[in-house]
Every structure is written in structure tokens, then in C-alpha cells.
């Protein structure tokens, strides 16, 4: 928005520093950050977790917890020209400024809305907190903003409760609440992270549209470079509490100045990168490989979760047929609730199969009892989504990795298995000394590598990876994916790689299968599925995925 570049900023952050009192002494989260946001401008603040971007955003609204100590100034200007220094003013002045001058859109819409009140009441509550407004007027305003954020039939739905809306609609309502008092700036903290890609695209369109019509400034906190490329006018990169680089979006992507920014951009996976590699691998397969006995064969696989009293069960997976051949990586993509994780869990014997047939490593999983699975278990490894919870917090990393060896009698005790454990840790590029640490003393990426070491401990023929990188930062994700690809080439295990991120799946898979509402809509090589999708849903998925390149993204937006 060039026409606003010379107008006064709506938010000016001046040398902001925030530290938190913790058990281990004070920790500095933000260190001397200066930023400003002009009206009608979208400022994206990017950085990995722990970089201080959310703390900065919360400081704009004065939402920091009591353990925080703040220095510097955060000046928020009101529409009438006055300005409030959020850091130093009293609680009542701050309450006046919130909502009126600056509003917030949170990450998780379902936990932001109070489930026992109607959405209209919740929007009106904010209005009535800022001046005397009749019940009728407040309601009229609520209907108006609901209409503005694209809720169909707002006059009627203003009386609906939050659970009657879908996730994307809930986020729209949260945005409506932020808009109700027409604030000069909206702080959006990861507004689309909890949403599926197709919904994300709609919400981003809405935010852009609102910026254009109301002229409000937006501070967009995100770790998704695709969203940044799609939305931002200007980008501020944060790292370890400091502002590393600040530049207009085009310049930042085209000519990043700082080493950190370059590394961050290089780590972002892009759709199409893995296709060449997959083709290369396919070419080296021996003759007759495709006709060999597959490691996993699912035919008309159906999985139903039992319903409650007088309620029908929920079919999570509906007549899915797929094969995984020896040494092949099958990427399974889909939105949340599409049944991809259920398939992964069924293959590991964690979820009973209710219909069709699922053969894993020659064992029929339908109706299998734990005794039948015993022979198959050592030949299968599983990597869980969240490395923080998949380790027993009371055991050291070495003990955790040794667990499969001890359980299957390959070693008498965790201590006896230490030699093999050290080998495994080295294979995943962790120093041996990390074996003596406890899981909470490792970073997310290190933990996920240890998790990979545990899954590979018994040299499995099949590895099931359930969203192994979705809890990790982009930069860390890149390293874990690289390691995964290396190990896969070296050890030649077959793999089911579940992810919601098309770009990630493309990077590691030989073939890609797309799930939608429990059904398998399309499968084929990366070139087939991503290059020339035959199904409407796949096409929509690809179109919604923001590309981390502002120019291409702007062109795609025009075409849509």
C-alpha cells in the first residue's frame, strides 16, 4: 500500500524488551525491537518458535502475563488522533484502548469463543464495554460485522452458538469481533495455523479484503512463508528476540540480506521439488519390482468408530485400497479429519479394522489379536507426530531408544543395549552423550531425530511416520526431512508418510495418495498428482496452497 507510506503509523514499537521470570531465573524473550505499522498496511512478523514474535504481538495489546517485565514503548494511536503507550498506562486506560484502537485475532478459533453464549452476544459484549449502546443497536452492529466477514444470513445466525459454525466460520466470527469497534490495527497471531489449507485461503482473502475496505493495519504473526508471500506488504524477521531484517515483501523474498533470512527461506519446502528425485529413484528400481509382494496391501479398508447410544458410528476410513511396495515411500495427504492418521494407526495395530482387508507384512490386521501381531511388530517402526509426548519423560533418551531392543529380547537391559543405541543415535546425527539426557532437555528437532532412532532400532521393513514434522519449525523440519531421506535410501525400508503438507509429502515420497473425508480420491506419482491432478479436490488443494514467492502468489490470486 504505497499511498499510505507517508501517513502516521498506527502502532509504533520503540526499543521493546520483555523478560519473563522463570524458575531458572529471568529469560529475555524480546530484545530491543523497533517496528511500526501504517494504516492499511500488512506487516508480517516471521520467525521460528521462541523467536519472540508472539510476545511482541501480545505486547501491542498489553496482554503479557504478570511474570513479564517490559521496557521500551508501544505507542498505539487512536482514530481520533490520540496515542496510548501500552507499556506504561494504567489498566483502565489500556482497557479503553483495547478493541477500540487495537484488536486481536487468535490462533485457535474454537477456544476463543465462549461455547455458552451466542456469537451475537459475544460481539455485542465488546461493543457495550466501550460506551453506552442499546441492546438493539449493539445487535444491529453485530449483524453488520457478521455480514461483512462473509457469514451468510447474518440476521439469523447472530443468535447461533459457536458450535453451530465450522472452524473457518468461527475464525470469521473472531475476525468480526475484532472488527466490531473499527480498530486502527488488528493483531493476527497465526490466524490460519489451526485451519486446513482450503479454509486458510478463504480467511486470507477475507483479511486482505477487510484491509482494503476499512484501511486497518494488520500485524500478521506467522511461521508460514507461503502466507507471508500471500498477504504481507512488509516483513519483519525475528530471531532470538531480535529483529534480524525488515524489508518490503518482494525485496525480502528476492534479495534477502541477512544470513538467517536466507537460511529460513531456503528451508521452506516447495511443491515440485521432490518430483525429480522420485523419478530418479523410480528409474533405478529393478525389473519386476512393481509385481513383487507388497509390504502393505489394503483392499476396501473401512474403519468405523463406534457411535454412542442410539447414534450411528462414524466412518473415518471408507473403502480405501492402496499398496506399499518394498522400499517405497507412500505419502498420504489430506486435511484434518480425512482419515489419514486413522489408516496409519490401523497399520500399526493401534486401531481395529472394521471392514475390508488390511495386510501388513503378511499379517491380516482385521480381527487380529495382540498375539497374532507379535511376529510382525519388530518388523515395523512408528514415528509419532509430537516428539514432546512420544517419549516417556522419566526415561533417558538411551533407555527410550533401547526399549524396542529390550522388549524383543535383543538385549537383556537398556545398559546392555547401549552399544547399539549409540550407533543409532549417530545414524540420526545426535551425539552419543545425548543418550544420557532426558527428553525435555532436547529441542523438538533433536527429539524427533531420537524418535526416528527408536523407530529404526529393530531395522524395520516398514516405517509409519504420522505427521513427523508438523510440530517442528520450518528450519528444523528441513533437517529432519533430509535425514529421513538419507536413512531411507541407506536402509531401504518401505514407508507410509502421513502429512497435511503437500510440499513435505512431495519432498520425500515416491507416490502420493490424497485423502478427502475418509475416501482416497487420487493416487499416483508426484508428477501425476501434483503436475496434472485429475480430481477436482486435488486441484483445489493445490490452488489453495500458498506459494512462498510473492510474485507467483499474486499471479495465482488474480487467476483465482
Amino acid at each position, binding site marked *: 500500500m504505497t499511498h499510505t507510506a507517508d501517513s502516521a503509523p498506527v502502532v509504533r514499537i520503540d526499543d521493546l*524488551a520483555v523478560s*519473563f*521470570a*522463570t*524458575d*531458572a*531465573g*529471568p*529469560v*529475555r*524473550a524480546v530484545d530491543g525491537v523497533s517496528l511500526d505499522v501504517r494504516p492499511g498496511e500488512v506487516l508480517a512478523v516471521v520467525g*521460528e*518458535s*521462541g*523467536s519472540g514474535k508472539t510476545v511482541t504481538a501480545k505486547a501491542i495489546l498489553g496482554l503479557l502475563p504478570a*511474570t*513479564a*517485565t*517490559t*521496557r521500551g514503548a508501544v505507542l498505539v494511536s487512536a482514530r481520533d488522533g490520540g496515542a496510548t503507550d501500552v507499556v506504561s498506562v494504567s489498566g483502565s486506560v489500556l482497557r479503553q484502548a483495547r478493541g477500540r484502537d487495537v484488536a486481536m485475532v487468535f490462533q485457535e478459533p474454537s477456544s476463543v469463543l465462549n461455547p455458552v453464549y451466542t456469537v451475537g452476544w459475544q460481539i455485542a459484549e465488546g461493543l457495550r464495554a466501550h460506551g453506552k449502546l442499546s441492546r438493539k443497536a449493539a445487535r444491529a452492529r453485530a449483524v453488520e460485522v457478521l455480514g461483512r466477514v462473509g457469514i451468510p444470513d447474518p440476521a439469523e445466525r447472530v443468535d447461533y452458538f459457536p458450535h453451530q459454525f465450522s472452524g473457518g466460520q468461527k475464525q470469521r466470527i473472531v475476525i468480526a469481533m475484532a472488527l466490531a469497534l473499527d480498530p486502527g490495527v488488528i493483531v493476527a497471531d497465526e490466524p490460519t495455523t489451526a485451519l486446513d489449507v482450503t479454509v486458510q485461503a478463504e480467511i486470507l482473502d477475507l483479511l486482505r479484503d477487510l484491509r482494503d475496505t476499512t484501511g486497518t493495519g494488520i500485524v500478521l504473526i506467522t511461521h508460514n512463508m507461503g502466507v507471508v508471500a500471500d498477504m504481507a506488504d512488509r516483513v519483519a524477521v525475528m530471531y*532470538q*528476540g*531480535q529483529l534480524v531484517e525488515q524489508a518490503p515483501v518482494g525485496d525480502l523474498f528476492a534479495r534477502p540480506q541477512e*544470513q538467517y533470512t536466507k*537460511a*529460513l527461506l*531456503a*528451508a521452506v519446502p516447495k511443491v515440485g521439488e521432490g518430483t525429480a528425485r522420485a523419478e530418479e529413484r523410480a528409474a533405478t528400481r529393478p525389473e519386476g519390482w512393481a509385481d513383487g509382494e507388497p509390504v502393505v496391501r489394503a483392499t476396501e479398508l473401512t474403519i468405523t468408530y463406534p457411535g454412542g447410544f442410539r447414534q450411528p458410528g462414524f466412518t473415518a476410513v471408507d473403502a480405501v485400497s492402496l499398496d506399499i511396495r518394498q522400499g517405497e515411500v507412500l505419502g498420504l495427504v489430506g486435511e484434518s479429519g480425512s482419515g489419514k492418521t486413522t489408516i496409519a494407526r490401523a497399520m500399526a*495395530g*493401534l486401531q481395529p479394522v472394521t471392514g475390508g482387508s488390511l495386510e501388513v507384512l503378511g499379517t491380516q490386521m482385521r480381527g487380529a489379536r*495382540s498375539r497374532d*501381531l*507379535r511376529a510382525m*511388530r*519388530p518388523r515395523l517402526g*512408528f514415528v*509419532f*507426530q509430537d516428539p514432546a*509426548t*512420544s*517419549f*516417556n*519423560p*522419566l526415561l533417558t533418551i538411551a533407555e527410550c531408544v533401547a*526399549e524396542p531392543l529390550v*522388549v*524383543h529380547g535383543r538385549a537383556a537391559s537398556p545398559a546392555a543395549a547401549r552399544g547399539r543405541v549409540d550407533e543409532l543415535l549417530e545414524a540420526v546425527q*545426535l*551425539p552419543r552423550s545425548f543418550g544420557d539426557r*532426558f527428553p*525435555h*532437555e532436547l*529441542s523438538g*528437532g*533433536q527429539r524427533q531425530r531420537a524418535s526416528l532412532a*527408536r523407530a529404526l532400532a529393530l531395522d524395520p521393513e516398514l516405517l509409519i511416520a504420522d505427521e513427523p514434522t508438523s510440530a517442528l519449525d*520450518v*528450519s*528444523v523440519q528441513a*533437517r529432519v526431512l533430509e535425514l529421513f531421506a538419507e536413512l531411507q535410501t541407506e536402509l531401504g525400508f518401505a514407508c507410509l508418510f502421513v502429512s497435511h503438507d503437500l510440499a513435505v509429502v512431495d519432498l520425500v515420497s515416491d507416490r502420493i495418495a490424497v485423502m478427502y473425508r475418509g475416501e482416497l480420491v487420487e493416487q499416483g506419482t508426484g508428477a501425476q498428482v501434483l503436475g496434472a491432478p485429475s480430481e477436482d479436490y486435488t486441484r483445489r488443494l493445490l490452488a489453495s496452497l500458498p506459494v512462498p514467492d510473492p510474485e507467483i502468489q499474486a499471479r495465482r490470486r488474480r487467476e483465482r
Partner: protein
Amino acid sequence: MAGEISEVGIAGAAPEHLSGRGAWFRRLPVVHQLRQSMGLQRGMLVAGLVLCAVFVVTAVFAPVLAPFTGSQLRTGDGTSFGAQQPPSAEHWLGTTVGGYDVLSRVIWGAQTALLVVIVAVAASIVVGVLLGLVSGYFGGALDRVLVVVADAIYAFPSLLLAILLAIVISGGQSSMWGGIMAAALSITVVFVPQYFRVTRAEVVRVKAEAFVDSARVLGTGHLRIMTRHVLRNSTRTLPLIVTLNASEAILTLAGLGFLGFGIEPTAAAEWGYDLQRSVADVTSGIWWTALFPGLAIVLAAMGMTLVGESLNDLADPRLRMRAASAEVAGDVAETSVPGTTKETEE
């Protein structure tokens, strides 16, 4: 419980490094909390610990501290103490209506109380945790039956249940250990449902954690999962209940004694019994027979409650007080650097 990192600090709080000399000492349960605490919370914890220490020391060294045994009525040369004697050089806290020395009864009473608390808490932990583990882990019909039974026991007034059990177990016995076991076990029955429910709730939660799934994928046996993965992660809150229950055990014991279902005065000294015998004295101006056993009950129960409550607060990062940093201080935490330093791997 070492290394609890609060939500806000998770960005950078480095793992608390406990190494060097005395590290094991600083990591001990209560010592760790004491170091962690501050302000009013520290005051409460220290006061509670001091009261508990006095209670335990008194109980352990009762034979050395008490001038007479609990059931002694005469001095060594055969002269009777005399009933309801006011405090004097001979009897510092006077004598009771039955002719016992009050000071000796109070000191020996601490020993009885401590034994009952230990036996009651130990027995209820073993039974409650075991039942909770099995019930929560396997679920199904057994689980439902046990939960209903636990709820049914909750529905009874606990003292009534304890009286019933005291009658059933001791059947009018009067030996010291018979009385102590009867009192302790009747308290156990009241406590078991608490340990059962807390353990079961934790087990049900832990059972759904990814690391238990991960053990199941490996084909780990039920017994190994239960002991190695589930049990050890489900017992965090138990120390808190133990301290709170210990004070309740003292009160229940005193209640039983007061109602006449406790331990015979000739077998062992017991505060509740003494208090009951002194009811009539209060109206006739004889204050020393009621005051000291009553004070002993209050202080012992209060000490344990204070420890329990402050440990409870300290275990919760949201309730724990911390020193506010006056200046914006502290170092920025290390996070990973892609490409440039290839993650921090020392």
C-alpha cells in the same frame, strides 16, 4: 518434579542444571521445593516443616523426652501422682483426672499418632495405587465395579465407617499394636478410594499418551507398560495427597479416641482419649488437662496441612510465586539456527 518449566518461560528456560556437589541433596523432593519457594509460600512451607519435625522428633524420642511412661500412675517409690494436680515442678503440665502425667501422655501420644499415620498412609497407598492402576489401565467391567464401590465408600460419613471398622477389627482388644492397627486400618478404608481415584484418573490420562502408544506399537507386554511407562508417570500428585491425608489421619484417630473406639489408656497414650476424659474438667476450671492434648492435635494436623498445601501450590506453575526481575534482565535463549550453525549440538 525437577525442571518444571512454566508456560511462558518455555521459550528459553534452559534445563535447570543440577550438578556438582550436593546436587542429589538439592533434588530431594521437599528440599527442591523449599529452594524453589519464596515469600509467603516459603513461610508456610517452613512453618509446616518445623511443626512436622517437632512432631516426628517428639514421637521418635518419646522414651527419652517423657518423664514417665504413658500409663504410669505412681513414681518409682510407689507414691501416687494424684488426680487433677495443677502444673508443678514434679508434673510440668499437671495430671489428668485418671491420675496420669499430662506431659508424658502428650509426648507418648505423638508416638501413637505417628505410627497410626504411617501404617494408615502406607496401607492406603499400596492398596489404592494398585487398584487404581489395574482399574484404569484395563478398564471394562472391573473398572466400573471398583469405581462404584469407591463412590459408595465416599457416600458414608468417614468417621462412622472408621468406627465400624474399629469395632470389626479390634473387637474390644486393648493391646498397643492391636489398637494401632485397628485405628490405622479403619482410616485406610476411608483413604483407599482417594488414592484409587487419583491414580485411576492419572492412569487413564497417561494411557492415552503417545509414549504408551509407542510402547504398544513395539509389542510391549501389559505388565511392562503398566510398571515402566504408566505407573511411574501417574504418581506425581500422590505426595501431595499423602501430606494432606496424614493430617486427616491424625484428626480421625483423635475422633475415634474421643468417641471411645481408639486405644485403651493403659496400652498407649492417645490424645483423643485424653481430650474426652477432660471434658468435665473444663467447666470446673481445670484447664491443663484439655489444653495440651488439644494443642498437640491442632499443631500436628496444622503442620502437615501447611506442608501439603504449600507443596500443592509449588507444584502448580500458575500458583508458584517467583522473584520478579526489577530490570529487563536475563539472556535470550538459544534456539536453533538453520544452516548457519547447524543447531546447537555441544
